[in-house]
């Protein structure tokens, strides 16, 4: 009997199956099957038609003051999904300033952060000066004048004609200036609008030069947050805090607490932007100068405040660095004497792994008793791995890993002669086991059998990923290949991603290219056409490299460390070529479903939110070159017609919907990539109207509308006084405060709003398609002209205004979010839409 018992907890390991091929096989315990069908059927039954019910309460008023509406409207104006991209790229670039100067950040210990900060400050200093100078120029123009004297056109003209003669900045820095200019423009426009609307709307606003002066003060803290994002030191509750700012301003309830289950990194960039936009908006609405001053001070110190709160909640327990603990663990394994148990080393390592990877387990453990559970887990894990730890075993293990990975990884000579890779595989397995553990509750943790089952299941998967296949039972191997996962980069102590040691040789058939979807549901065929100018209607040969992001990694880091043709540190934007390896992609491209990981659509809505544990692939195609078209992406003019370096890859099709309940209008922006637009124009010019119609149908109906319907949470901006979060994805899943909950059972308010928005989007997209078709019948020349502009792609902008019925839905949402009581909704229907106003613009122009 292979028992490991401690503190009263006991589990017989031998009764469970291990993933290793050389262990005896035993029957698994039958699992109790959960039936999800009933749950979902129930949910849909309740949520399908939220309007069919009649709620007998009377109120048709509105919850917010006009100032509140204006505030939300400004927030929506300021929100720019591309701003997140710029922040991400900036974080990436700022990290480059120290990456090559640091060979071992773990060895630097406490000196690492100050060193990185110093490098970052040097990078940010000229940007800060330039941003301030930009704001000064705007301030100079608008101060002293009566803001109300400026028409919207005049303001647009002023900003359109602004020319800058600043020095040499990188493409992303230039884009940052463009975003700052845009934010300032939105503030000036809203300020002008408010002044025109008169004092009744907002009481009074501060002189615009004072507001802009204070906004200037927000730039430095904003850049500091970018640095913190780069070094993974942003407070993890930034996003809810940022949302809370709006809610406090709007007097909405701010009861959202972020559970430890939420990924801390998921919404960081959104959080930075949301927080910044809220402070910018509040500055415009600040009634007095001291209030404005208070806001800037508040923004400067918000991180510290959040950290203090987080530390207080965590009982001031500092989480040890997982990377450092991992290094110690590997060394401990190396130094084990013959016959010595690895359990103590695992016991030492587990707390760091649990804190970093499984805060959910942490909670359960803290209830039951930390040391007791850790000792128990460590005991089982020690039993599972102990036979691989002795030098005589670990060396061949390392040799096997090198053997299966030499061609893909290209190990250094010093690595090929020692056992480190073997110890690393063991450490990876333990670490990944913790990562794979399902959330545990107090009961599970108390039940040793149950806990062992959980652990074994997680271990099975972890071992199969990190040990060479011959060590793993055949049925558990996720791949047919003689390959395993190896932590990367090899020459760095901190591993940021893993690489699969087999490179697949595949042929992408046209059918596959149009079926496999990538980020935001975009077909692979579009990606290949847009990014490389390839023709996916013909079979394409490719080598597929497979990666997995590590705990402290970002997708862009893979591009920094790989040395493949097209995917290397010298190739700008190389990382945008990494695509999500979903089960679908793994099945159709690699013919190995087990290599894929099913991803939540929200997490693959954009590549800027890639999360640890997700898998990606890179297609190495002979002759394929990532195109970075020479287009001015900086969104501002340069003196002497100077063109800043382009810096952004050719874009693919995209869509955005803006549902503005305050203005009772809906906007839908269809972005045609340059390739898509070219395909349409080419057919129009050849009088191939049927072909053009087919291309339009393919772009609008098959790709863009589908993208919208499958990404309602991320692609629809909602402008509503009760939804300052702007996007469904930002509304916490666990919000309990919605009032209809008691009426319609377990369906949350978010789900009802989501259903409502989905219905609206479904209807509007059908209407939009018809409008686009009619547009091409009558005004295709405009599209041709836009496509002939040197910009990248064309946006068709549709706007429905004064939509009747929107006000009722607005009230319903207010009621759902607890601001009002529901009125009689028996007559509530989804509005019908007349023909929209349609405009065409070159480039990607989202609102």
């Amino acid at each position: 009997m292979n028992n490991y018992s401690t503190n009263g907890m006991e589990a017989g390991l031998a009764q469970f199956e291990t993933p290793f091929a050389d262990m005896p096989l035993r029957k698994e315990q039958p699992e109790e099957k959960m039936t999800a069908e009933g749950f979902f059927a129930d949910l849909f039954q309740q949520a399908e038609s939220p309007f069919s019910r009649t709620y007998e309460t009377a109120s048709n008023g509105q919850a917010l003051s006009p100032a509140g509406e204006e505030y939300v409207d400004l927030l929506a104006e300021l929100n720019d999904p591309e701003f997140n991209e710029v922040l991400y790229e900036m974080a990436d670039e700022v990290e480059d300033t120290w990456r090559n100067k640091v060979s071992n950040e773990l060895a630097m210990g406490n000196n690492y952060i100050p060193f990185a900060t110093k490098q970052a400050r040097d990078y940010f200093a000229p940007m800060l000066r330039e941003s301030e100078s930009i704001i000064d120029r705007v301030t100079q123009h608008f101060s002293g004048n009566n803001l109300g004297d400026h028409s919207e056109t005049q303001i647009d003209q002023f900003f359109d004609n602004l020319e800058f003669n600043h020095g040499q900045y990188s493409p992303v820095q230039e884009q940052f200036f463009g975003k700052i200019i845009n934010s300032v423009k939105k503030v000036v426009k809203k300020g002008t609008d408010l002044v025109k609307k008169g004092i009744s709307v907002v009481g009074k606003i501060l002189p615009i030069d004072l507001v802009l002066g204070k906004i200037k003060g927000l730039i430095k803290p904003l850049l500091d947050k970018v640095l913190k994002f780069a070094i993974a030191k942003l407070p993890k509750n930034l996003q809810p805090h940022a949302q809370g700012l709006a809610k406090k301003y709007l007097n909405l309830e701010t009861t959202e607490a972020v559970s430890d289950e939420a990924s801390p990194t998921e919404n960081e960039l959104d959080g930075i932007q949301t927080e910044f936009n809220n402070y910018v908006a509040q500055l415009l609405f600040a009634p007095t100068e001291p209030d404005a001053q208070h806001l800037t001070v508040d923004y400067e110190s918000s991180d510290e405040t959040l950290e203090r709160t987080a530390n207080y909640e965590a009982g001031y327990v500092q989480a040890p660095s997982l990377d450092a603990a991992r290094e110690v663990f590997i060394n401990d394994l190396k130094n084990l004497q013959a016959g010595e148990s690895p359990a103590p080393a695992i016991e030492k390592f587990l707390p760091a792994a649990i804190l970093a990877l499984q805060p959910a387990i942490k909670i359960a453990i803290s209830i039951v008793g930390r040391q007791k559970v850790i000792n128990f887990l460590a005991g089982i894990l020690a039993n599972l791995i102990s036979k691989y730890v002795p030098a005589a075993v670990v060396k061949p293990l390392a040799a096997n890993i090198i053997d299966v990975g030499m061609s893909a990884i290209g190990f250094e000579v010093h690595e090929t002669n020692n056992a480190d890779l073997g110890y690393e595989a063991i450490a990876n397995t333990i670490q990944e086991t913790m990562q794979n553990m399902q959330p545990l509750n107090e009961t599970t943790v108390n039940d040793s059998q149950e806990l062992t089952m959980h652990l074994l299941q997680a271990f099975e998967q972890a071992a199969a990923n990190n040990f060479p296949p011959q060590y793993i039972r055949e049925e558990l191997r996720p791949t047919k290949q003689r390959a395993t996962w190896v932590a990367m980069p090899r020459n760095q102590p901190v591993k940021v991603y893993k690489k699969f040691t087999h490179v697949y040789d595949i042929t992408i058939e046209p059918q596959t290219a149009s079926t496999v979807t990538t980020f935001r549901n975009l077909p692979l065929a579009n990606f290949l056409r847009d990014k490389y100018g390839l023709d996916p209607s013909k079979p394409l040969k490719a080598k597929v490299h497979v990666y997995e992001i590590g705990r402290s990694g970002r997708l862009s880091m893979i591009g920094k460390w790989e040395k493949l043709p097209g995917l290397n540190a010298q190739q700008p934007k190389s990382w945008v070529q990494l695509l999500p390896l979903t089960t679908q992609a793994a099945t159709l491209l690699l013919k190995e479903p087990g290599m894929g990981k099913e991803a939540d659509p929200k997490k693959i809505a954009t590549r800027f939110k890639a999360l640890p544990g997700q898998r990606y692939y890179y297609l190495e195609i002979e002759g394929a070159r990532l195109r970075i078209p020479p287009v001015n992406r900086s969104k501002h003019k340069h003196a002497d017609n100077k063109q800043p370096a382009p810096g952004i890859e050719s874009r693919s099709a995209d869509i955005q919907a803006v549902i503005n309940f305050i203005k009772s209008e809906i906007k839908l922006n269809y972005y045609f990539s340059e390739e898509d637009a070219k395909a349409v124009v080419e057919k129009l010019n050849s009088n191939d109207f049927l072909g053009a119609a087919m291309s339009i149908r393919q772009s609008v109906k098959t790709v863009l509308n589908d993208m919208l319907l499958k990404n309602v949470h991320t692609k629809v901006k909602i402008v509503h006084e009760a939804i300052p979060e702007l996007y469904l994805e930002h509304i916490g899943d666990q919000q309990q405060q919605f009032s209809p909950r008691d009426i319609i059972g377990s369906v949350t308010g978010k789900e009802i709003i989501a259903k409502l928005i989905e219905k609206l989007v479904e209807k509007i997209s059908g209407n939009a398609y018809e409008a686009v078709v009619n547009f091409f019948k009558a005004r295709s020349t405009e599209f041709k002209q836009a496509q002939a502009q040197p910009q990248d792609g064309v946006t068709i902008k549709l706007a429905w205004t004064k939509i009747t019925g929107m006000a009722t839905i607005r009230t319903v949402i207010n009621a759902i979010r607890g601001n009002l009581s529901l009125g009689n909704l028996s007559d509530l229907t989804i509005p019908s839409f007349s023909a929209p106003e349609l405009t065409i613009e070159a480039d990607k122009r989202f609102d």
Partner: protein
Amino acid sequence: MATTISIYNSLMRQVNHWLMAASKLSVVEHLASPQAWQGIDHQIGVMLRESFKKSIDDVLAQATSLQRQLENAGEQASLSAAKRGVQDLRNRYLKAEESIHFYTVAINSRTTPGISALLRGCDILCVRSMQELLKPLAKATPPVLTYIDKGVGASILKAGLRLWDGNVSNVAAIKVTQHNLYRPTAIIHETGHQMAHILNWNEELSAALNNELTNHAPMVGEAFSRWSSEMAADAFAFVHTGFAAVAALHDVVSGMPHAVFAYHQHDPHPISYLRVLMNIEMCRQFYGAGPWDDLEEAFKDTYDINMIAVPSVGLINLCVSALPDVVNILLKRKFRAFGERSLSAVILPERVSPRELEKLEQQAGPALYTSHAWIWKECLRLLALGGYKIGLGKGDLPALYKQQEEWMTKLGFAVELN
């Protein structure tokens, strides 16, 4: 004894000299400006650095070995061997320097971001022209580094050939002449050389010309057979760029009459007079009547064979009558090199006929020259189109040159910098 010491010292000093020189040469940053390095494709940069390193390492290894040999040399006989070694070392250094210098001059021609982009555009055009043929035949396309130099004609240092120092070049270096920078169809002629080298077409073509022009005098077949390598390159330029290549070639070879009719026995180039007419015949066979007829008329008027007295007139006249058959072999005959297909079946010259180019312009509209998608996809046909219009010599020629410059620069800027 004193003599031995002085010889030793002299030899040791020389070894040190070449050792120091090689060490200096190994600092690639000293060889070309950072801007120039940045202007070339990353992969080419990596390959060239590796190649330079290999050349220099060979010299350093020889120098170090010689140093050790000298340190252990006591006898006169060993010193004599060392003397020979120093001579070898000197030669090896100079050859390595020659190889490296060639490429660094090429790299350094990328003087400004604009010129670099233009040349990267040329690199892309070159690679694209070869890929179209080589990829279906499962042959790898070598990277291309184009550079600007003076002179009338373009040239190539092919990938896969031995360099001065004995190492094999892995990058094709193609010279673009200053005067043809904005209608560089000649670079496609040069990639034709590279393609023919990779596919061994020259030999096959030479044999076909020698054996199959049977209804002409034997000297005709023999002559064309000797010119096969240049004819192959012309044919390649023609299938990719049509009349543009023909007009550009005409302008390049239209020198003094004696040069146009001159025959040099070991020159792989056909007699210029014949070469122009052969290219015009290609147009005629694939496109029928067209502006090349006017070009021929003007050419024949300028270079009137009846008015010239050169020894080659007889051969020229015989060859002129064989041109239709020659073009037939060149473009329509199947070759093993192309997988038993003809060159014109693999790359269709019709795609760059005036009619198709006009259709392209009409299909794309003004976006043809501004849209990165069009430029990327149709860069070779854009080269053909621009060259065709310039070849016609009508309209706003400065604007046409400007247009060429602009789209080529856009093409170059569309890919990563080093």
